[in-house]
């Protein structure tokens, strides 16, 4: 029964006007491609916004209670880190400092906006492998690591070159990969001991605290304990929570979320319309076949099943085609923009979920097919 059902569905699709069918499938492919692009871009923006925090290995983080987003991070006394370590469950703490500065090329004096980050070159708190390997270079004073994904004018500088961070000289000692075009043209990492030299800011105040928990400690209860122990000028949260806050700023405060969601709605609409049209004309042109089936004794459910298989087959073809087209396109965009655009299981799964309402609305014409009155369709009467 199942095999004949699928066979009938297949025959319905491939017999008949091939051109028409191809044209309408193309519409479904474009619609699914749009869904892919918008889903992927939305995720890429969230990922990019929080990428800095991804460089570090920490269970909990500490920021000023006035923290808004990365570029203008208010500061708090570094003493809070020492206070945090004294709370049970906290193993170690490290300071990260962040400020806006400028990079001046040693070669031609060109200035670029710079996000300056200060770290302790201790590998324990660094998660990114590239940064971990390069960080020991910072033990030598006046050295800086540059972001390879900076704007080309800065990113093309070579190791060993000198430039200026602010007004003080710095030697490029290594590289890491980040890319934060929405904050500054370039980012650079120096050691915390050099940070005040370059930024002119108070060395006793820091912007971000990294906390690592003792093995087995429960993050939730340690966060509560820390909130009780520390004064109101700092906030403690999990690293994931901080990353979510940063992402939320870009997606919700800025209109990127609205724009991407509108795109998703559009993709769904377009796909539903394309598939609906195919099903509608398929049903219309095969009305007699469906009537014969009913006359032969097949149930209405069988009719729905045939239609459903048609939809599934078409959906599978459209999805595969869209995925194949997206593969090279995402590769190119990802390389140019340094955005995180993987074609992975999450994307596929979310896409499938979105396709459900699309297919469901395209199934509506089947109602007419299932109701096909055998007697009414034979002869002129």
């Amino acid at each position: 029964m199942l095999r004949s059902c699928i066979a009938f569905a297949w025959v319905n699709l491939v017999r008949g006007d091939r051109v028409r069918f191809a044209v309408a499938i193309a519409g479904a492919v474009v619609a699914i491609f749009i869904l892919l692009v918008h889903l992927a871009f939305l995720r890429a923006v969230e990922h990019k916004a929080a990428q800095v925090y991804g460089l570090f290995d920490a269970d909990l983080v500490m920021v000023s209670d006035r923290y808004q987003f990365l570029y203008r991070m208010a500061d708090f006394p570094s003493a809070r880190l020492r206070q945090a370590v004294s709370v049970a469950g906290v193993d170690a703490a490290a300071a990260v400092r962040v400020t806006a500065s400028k990079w001046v090329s040693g070669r031609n004096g060109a200035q670029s906006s710079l996000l300056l980050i200060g770290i302790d070159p201790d590998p324990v708190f660094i998660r990114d492998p590239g940064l971990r390997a390069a960080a020991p270079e910072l033990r030598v004073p006046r050295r800086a690591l540059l972001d390879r994904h900076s704007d080309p004018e800065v990113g093309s500088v070579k190791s060993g070159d000198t430039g200026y961070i602010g007004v003080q000289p710095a030697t490029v000692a290594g590289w890491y990969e980040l890319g934060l075009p929405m904050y500054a043209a370039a980012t650079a990492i120096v050691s915390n001991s050099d940070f005040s030299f370059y930024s002119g800011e108070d060395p006793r105040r820091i912007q971000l605290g990294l906390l690592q928990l003792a093995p087995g400690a429960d993050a939730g209860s340690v966060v509560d304990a820390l909130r009780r122990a520390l004064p109101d000028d700092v906030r403690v949260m999990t690293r994931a929570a901080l990353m979510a806050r940063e992402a939320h700023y870009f997606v919700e405060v800025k209109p990127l979320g609205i724009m991407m969601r509108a795109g998703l709605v559009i993709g769904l609409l377009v796909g539903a319309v394309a598939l609906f049209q195919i099903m509608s004309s398929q049903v219309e042109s095969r009305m007699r076949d469906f009537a014969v089936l009913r006359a032969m004794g097949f149930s209405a459910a069988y009719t729905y099943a045939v239609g459903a298989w048609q939809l599934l087959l078409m959906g599978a073809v459209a999805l595969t085609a869209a995925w194949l087209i997206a593969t090279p396109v995402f590769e190119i965009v990802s390389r140019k923009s340094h955005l995180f655009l993987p074609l992975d299981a999450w994307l596929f799964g979310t896409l499938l979920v979105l396709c459900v309402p699309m297919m469901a609305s395209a199934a509506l014409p089947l109602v007419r097919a299932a109701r096909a009155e055998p007697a009414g369709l034979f002869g002129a009467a």
Partner: protein
Amino acid sequence: MIKGLGAKLVMRDAARSAVAVGGIAVAVLIAFVEMGFMNGVVDSHLRMVEAARGDLVLLDARRSHLNKWDEILAIRLPQVRAVEGVVAVSPVYQAGKTFRAGPDQPDHRIVVVAFPPDNPPLDLGWSADTMALLRTPGTVLMDRLSRSIYGKLEAGQDVWLEGHLMRLGGFVSLGPTIVIDGTIAMSETTFRSLEPDGGPEMAVVRLAPGADPAQVKARVTAISGDSVQVFSKRELFDRESDYLMRVAPLGLLFGAGMAAGLFVGLVICYQVLYVAIRRRLAAYATLKAMGFPNGFVLRTVLEQAWAVGLAGYGVGLALAALAYHVLAAKTGLAIELNAARCASIAAACLAACTVAGALAALKAMRTPPADLF
């Protein structure tokens, strides 16, 4: 020749035509919305340039796009002022500062824009009274179209910029961009209390009536060499549009959507016409048997396509106008209709319907009359 057969057929098949009109309207709406987002990002970025009250805009040569804030060397302004043909050069300072609406409120980053309050270089959609408030040192004007993160503000209240207490005198209208969440305007004098040194990020140049912009540009280059760039507003618009389209995948994100919208319009138009033709295939066959040429059949079908296309475009345009209003309010971006944009979508709609009609007519044209009886 049967005149207006196509239009009559469309009216006859009211229900089917309505479906076609509806489908095309949705397709047109989709194309407008995607185009609206794309233009919204670009136009919002250009609002500052749009607001300039002058003939030319002066930027430092290192400022390769408006998201970089390199300063013009202060000496350049009087130098340019001395150039023949130039009547006035007015500086515009821009800087990102920390804004707080109250002593217990969180800090937010805001962009400060400052200039001489007499004969200001920018038109910020304000009344003369509001403009005059800038003359009082320490008074600032908030852009009421800024994003809601700055909180509810009232004229007359205290605000803090970089920890300095200032008074909110009133409001202006500018609008945020993708990058900038909010703007606050102040006089040059007030700005100096935040930033004592430094040149302006932009200067607005006003020419004498009849002065040739090209000649003035050449003279400016002769005096200041490569250190500054002079643009007409149009040239700066074009440069910034190119920059934005290059830097962000705007074309991919919104272009795909626009293409999809028009494609859907084509598909719907085609499917509806196809079914309509098939139902009347006998009638078309009769016409051909009577001697009407294929060209007539094609024209009839195209007339139907254009009729539903026109109606669909009209409905879609109305829906788009509504959608633009809502989207502009929700995103803060400059999402607007203008004649050129309406015309381009209209042209695309027409093209799509023509293609759809031609494809649908193929069947009727190819079928020999004898086969259909």
